[in-house]
């Protein structure tokens, strides 16, 4: 996999709001989020690249000098087969954690797009807020930063080649993580 530069990299690599590429990527992210919120998981998983690595590391509380606290152990550590299995599970009528289904909203802000060593791949970072409610339950909220590597496969079409979900919570205040990020 190509090295991904951080969004704070050289200005020449950044793709600012207002540029056509930025708008194209933003529109892709919004379409992707809508698929998740509309329970169109089969269509969503089609947006994942065959070589995707989808990971949500466990976070611990650490002193500033020791870094942000993202650990080697994860809440998600997925490849394309395991994501397809999760999606297939959601399409059964016996995945009780999502049957009847949750109602989710995926909010994305602070989107930063940066070029990489490869002309067709872009590092895309965004803040996310995912709200979830089901049955009569109060809202559960998941907030954090998402670091994606998006691969442009056709005009306005991308595949998610990497997704790191950097959640703010060290203790997940939800019975389960049966939703996707």
């Amino acid at each position, binding site marked *: 996999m190509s090295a991904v530069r951080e969004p704070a990299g050289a200005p020449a690599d950044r793709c600012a709001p207002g540029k056509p590429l930025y708008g194209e990527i933003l529109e892709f992210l919004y379409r992707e989020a809508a698929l998740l919120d509309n329970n169109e998981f089969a269509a969503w998983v089609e947006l994942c690249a065959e070589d995707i690595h989808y990971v*949500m590391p*466990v976070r*611990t*509380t*650490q*002193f500033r000098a*020791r870094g942000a*606290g993202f*650990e*080697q*152990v*994860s*809440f*998600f*550590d*997925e*490849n394309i*087969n*395991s994501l*397809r*299995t*999760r999606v*297939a*599970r959601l399409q*059964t009528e*016996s*995945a*009780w*954690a*999502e049957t009847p289904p949750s109602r989710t909203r995926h909010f994305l802000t602070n989107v930063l797009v940066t070029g990489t060593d490869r002309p067709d791949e872009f590092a895309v970072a965004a803040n996310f807020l995912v709200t979830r409610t089901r049955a009569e339950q109060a809202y559960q909220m998941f907030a954090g930063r998402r670091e994606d590597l998006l691969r442009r496969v056709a005009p306005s079409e991308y595949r998610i080649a990497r997704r790191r979900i950097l959640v703010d919570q*060290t*203790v*997940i*205040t*939800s*019975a*389960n*993580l*049966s939703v996707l990020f």
Partner: protein
Amino acid sequence: MANERVSGKAAQMGTRLASGEDLEHIVRPEEGLISRRIFADPEVYERELEGIFGRAWFFIGHESEIPERGDIVARQCGVDPVILVRDQAGVVRAFLNSCRHRGMRLCRTDRDNATTLRCPYHGWAYSISGELLAASSEHHYGPGELDKSQLGLIPVTRLGSYRGLVFGSWDPAAPSLEEWLGDMRWYMDIIFGRTGEIEFVGVPQIWDVECCWKIATDNFTDNFHVYWTHQSLVELGLLPSDPDFASHGHMVTLNNGHILHFVQGPPMEAFQGLGLPKSLWPRFKEHLNPAQAQIAQAHGYSAGTMWPNFHWLQLVTTGDTKSEPVGILNLRLEIPLSPTRTRMYSWFAIDKAAPADYRKISYETYVRCFGPSGIFDQDDMENWEECTATARGPAAKRYALHHKMGIGRSPDATWPGPGTSYADSYGEMTQRAWYAEWLRRMRHPAHAPGAVQRPRARVAS
């Protein structure tokens, strides 16, 4: 009749609730009847805090989580926050995570490596061996006002370890850890010693579930639920389509409420040897006695509960529809936060002797199948929350849950291990034994551990 037991001794021992009901009457494990009242009731919960969480032995952490001198992890012992440390001499110790002065939390990160801990409130500083080294502005204390020799960190009253698993108890009168575990050690040897040493990998996943801790605990030795709760995985072909597939094994009940299962799994090589790679199977005979080695060799699954709230899950499964089944060792702990809210801990562990490729696929399969995102666990937590939610009302509390399966079944005398064993691992003997121990504990209110000063407990390193 159950209500004969309500009178006399039971009432004197304090099992009567403010409502007039008596726990002896509403929790009848030998009849398989467990009242819904005990799952969402503040009064029962308050009694559990003293009667169980002030008295039993609790898992704190594994020695492999603090490999270096100065390593610290913040944990719980029962419901009290503690730090588990390896001090500068290499000794494993555990202390209440609270300054002796005002009680401020001392270690405020999840893990660290340090030689001292300084309280943010007034600057009292402790060595990680627990000695109070300094209080700031000490010259303001008059003679005798600050006896540092008496103000070390509060040690976990009793501390012990077995096969690297560190347990603590706040009860000075508790039996030794060895005595408490009793015959459970024979089975723990199979899980934690089958190929040599086990190590915990990284930090635990931690998440909060709106459920009674007992509802979760009840689930861990319940094989009967596997086919229906995890029906989605049957539909996808990740689990066998035979509703009885998880019943082909033995369940065992032991003294002190410890309970477990060993289940064969489908007749495939992947489901022998606890799902471990074939290259490790010869080690069973080196590290276990012949009966233990035979159990390890012949079974795929095992679940065990070290009473009350620490569990192993030894499983063979796959995290996706394209992969071959692989062994997983998952350790679980439930810490109640309220009558109806529980903090879950889940660790991945592995044999130190395991080859690198197995280590990787076992870990990935664990993450995909277990913990909050796990395609197995997700649906369990749904059950726990809803079973708790429906137990809150006054009407529900009048009715018992049903734990009668196998109540008339005879033990299997041919089982080679200790304890009372039953062939067929669909049955509720394990849960009945668990509730019997719960009831026994609730009869005897705790001592007042805060009043007791004991020499610091040590674990040999």
